[in-house]
């Protein structure tokens, strides 16, 4: 098969010492950017672009791409070990990952996350090799009505994030929706709920909000209880997952790959949605959904695999059609252009060497990241030996600097502070945080795609139902919703019958 030949040739090129070095540097930088709270792949790549001007084109592309998917690996570390999301996409990993760390299974969580990410990334790259153009064209079929349908589907799944109380989850979902309204009205271009604050014209900035709501609020609640010494004494062998943990994760990894990969093909999506959706899927197919949030390995394996599969799949529309699907990829697109590479259908024809070397380097990069991260897990876990009185203030410092670094804005630090207080209060009230984050993201996307759909149809709502793909997605949403209700009903019925049988 020609593709296989090309791929092997690409490997030969990618394995040259120089290109290996670029892949290594990129992976390291990416991991670092992921670990440091605040600056994410978009800003990080943009600032590192000038680095690549001095090196050859292939090496530059390899390095930039490695930075991108490297950030997906790094973000996990702080989420699991400290419950502070290093990166927006890792926010959902906090839920179960941190609980695992508290039980002394932090190393295992990180290992599974790394391996799952590797598998997800490699499979996504295989998809790129085998079927890039048709897959990319599929992604293009998602116009505003289809997007709207997807958002409806996503939002209806928010109950998958609820803890014990669906009502509380819905309250937080509503809160997230309201929060998403702050900013500019997409159709009128005028400020909405900004209270005259110019800094809010772009809406509440996502990363400081998540860092405050989920991260710093955790620090605040930890501070009020006596320092726990539980996971300082973790023996080294338990850094590796047990057989049972492996078995439990396998399904999650493949499901996560499927979710992340499919979402990565759709321009306009982002990694956070992929991770959240994977978590929801895991909860819904699990036999013990109520145990989620207490340290279920599936809640780590799925989302972490999904966000890596997403990151690698996002290259498919980029390479085969030249479509950047998300802001980070758009930055990569610009970087490619400046280095003389024009992503698009002609790329495979004009510069096959480059393309295949880069694709091969994706696999190599994932391997490097795995090798880099696995042994380092011991080091990261050892960081927890630092006395909490030093450790947590350090985390706070990183969060503050991180929040500032996104937009060089002190206002964002204020946002983070505000949401840390809110998050602390919500935790006390036992209100789940994840639903608010999900609707905060999905809400505005839903509104914009609905508005665009109506602009296309000049006010006719029927456009959402008359387009086949959109109608299909909506039907799927309806079916899933009904299925969940039925399943819930059946399970409750089962529980009641069991109770009665015992009596």
């Amino acid at each position, binding site marked *: 098969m020609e593709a296989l030949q090309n791929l092997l040739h690409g490997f030969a090129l990618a394995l040259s010492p120089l290109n290996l070095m670029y892949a290594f540097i990129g992976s390291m930088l990416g991991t670092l950017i992921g670990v440091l709270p605040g600056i994410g792949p*978009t800003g990080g790549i943009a600032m590192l672009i000038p680095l690549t001007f001095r090196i050859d084109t292939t090496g530059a592309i390899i390095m930039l791409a490695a930075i991108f998917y490297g950030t997906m690996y790094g973000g996990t570390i702080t989420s699991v070990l400290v419950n502070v999301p290093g990166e927006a996409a890792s926010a959902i990993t906090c839920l179960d990952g941190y609980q695992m760390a508290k039980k002394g299974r932090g190393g295992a969580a990180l290992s599974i996350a790394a391996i799952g990410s590797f598998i997800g990334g490699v499979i996504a790259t295989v998809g790129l090799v085998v079927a890039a153009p048709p897959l990319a064209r599929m992604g293009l079929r998602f116009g505003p009505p289809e997007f709207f349908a997807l958002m409806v589907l996503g939002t209806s799944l928010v109950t998958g994030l609820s803890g014990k109380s669906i009502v509380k989850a819905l309250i937080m979902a509503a809160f997230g929706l309201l929060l998403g309204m702050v900013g500019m009205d997409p159709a009128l271009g005028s400020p909405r709920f900004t209270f005259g604050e110019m800094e809010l*014209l772009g809406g509440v900035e996502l990363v400081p909000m998540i860092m405050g709501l989920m991260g710093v609020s955790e620090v605040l609640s930890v501070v009020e209880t006596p320092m726990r010494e539980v996971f300082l004494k973790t023996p080294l062998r338990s850094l590796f997952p047990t057989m049972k943990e492996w078995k439990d994760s396998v399904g999650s990894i493949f499901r996560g790959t499927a979710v992340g990969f499919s979402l990565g093909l759709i321009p306009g999506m982002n990694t956070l949605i992929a991770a959240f959706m994977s978590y929801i899927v895991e909860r819904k197919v699990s036999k013990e959904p109520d145990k989620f949030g207490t340290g279920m390995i599936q809640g780590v394996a799925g989302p972490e695999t999904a966000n890596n599969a997403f990151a690698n799949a996002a290259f498919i529309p980029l390479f085969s059609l030249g479509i950047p699907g998300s802001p980070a990829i758009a930055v990569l697109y610009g970087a490619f252009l400046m280095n003389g590479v024009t992503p698009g259908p002609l790329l495979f024809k004009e510069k096959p060497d480059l393309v295949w070397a880069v694709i091969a380097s994706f696999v190599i990069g994932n391997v490097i990241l795995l090798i880099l991260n696995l042994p380092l897990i011991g080091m990261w876990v050892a960081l927890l030996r630092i006395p909490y009185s030093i450790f947590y203030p350090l985390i706070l410092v990183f969060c503050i600097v991180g929040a500032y670094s996104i937009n060089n804005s002190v206002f964002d630090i204020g946002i983070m502070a505000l949401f840390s207080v809110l998050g602390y209060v919500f935790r006390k009230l036992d209100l789940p945080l994840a639903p608010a984050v999900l609707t905060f993201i999905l809400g505005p996307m839903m509104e914009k795609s609905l508005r665009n759909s109506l602009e296309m149809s000049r006010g006719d709502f029927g456009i959402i139902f008359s387009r086949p793909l959109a109608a299909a997605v909506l039907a799927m949403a309806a079916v899933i919703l009904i299925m969940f209700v039925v399943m819930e009903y059946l399970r409750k019925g089962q529980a009641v019958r069991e109770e009665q049988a015992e009596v």
Partner: protein
Amino acid sequence: MRESTFMSRRAFLKEAVAGAAVAATAPVLFASGASAAAPAKIDYPAKGKVVNLIVPWPPGGPADTSVRVLGPALEKELGTTIEIVNRGGAGTQIGMTELARSKPDGYTIGQVSLPTAAALYLNPARQAIFNRKSFQPIAMYIDDPGVIAVRADSPYRDLKSLVDAAKANPEKIKVAGSGVLAMTHLQLLLFQKEAGAKFAIVQFEGGAPQMTNLLGGHVECASFVLSDAAVRHKGGQVRVVGVMAKERSPLLPDAKTAEEQGYKVYFGSSRGWAVPAGTPKEIVEIINGAVKRATENAEVKEKMERAGLALRYMPTEEYTKYWEDTEGTTRQLLEQEGVKVPKP
């Protein structure tokens, strides 16, 4: 009452001392003023002092990219370290506000995007604390004309076919915009008026979703800045059917202008540099010269062309007039759209 006399005596003394000081230094000032008939050697930029370039966009977009390409050359021409400061948000309002509030000493220079900035400060809903008079324009370095493009396999091969279709089906031909009151929107309004046709404007957020939806066939055409469409026009995925400028762009020599096809529409986006109003003329001249030489740098030209950015240098006087004219057109268009622009 005794207090106030006491204070006023103190105040009087203060004034007296100040007056004496001024009287003492006045001759010195006059002397240096006299010797400034021959141009005084202004120490700008001072050795070791950093010049901040405020980019009112988040890192990674085309505006930011253009600065990162120009940056190293500008640094060389100015002869001092440059630091690029991203102050993105609120469609350049945050960055422009910071520029307006900076000291007019030449150590803070800001990138200005027109007509974006004008549409912003003319719109009372935005409550901008600045306007044109808050700034001293220096020079333009990028001139990005507006274009209308279709997918390469589209049945519409020129502006006329699009206009005919729109006239036959008012508000049915979908055109992708990049934001309400953005340049791409304003350009469409001008074009609709000139052509006498109404399209269905679908507002996306920025150039990327515009392109995605055009390529996906969800809209029939799109209103771009040239730089957003150039790379793909050359790559054969889209066709630019009209350029809203007086002459064809050197980046896309085969794309006809709107004027050639009978539509007199001239509009586009530009990027330039400005400093806070009140900056000394000599400093403005120095920066102006540095920008000019930086735009002539071969490496800069090459990278800009690869990225599809239309480099164009326009000196201070011309740029100042351009800003004024653009503001005038923008004002008209905003008022047309119902924005209550305050009288100048």
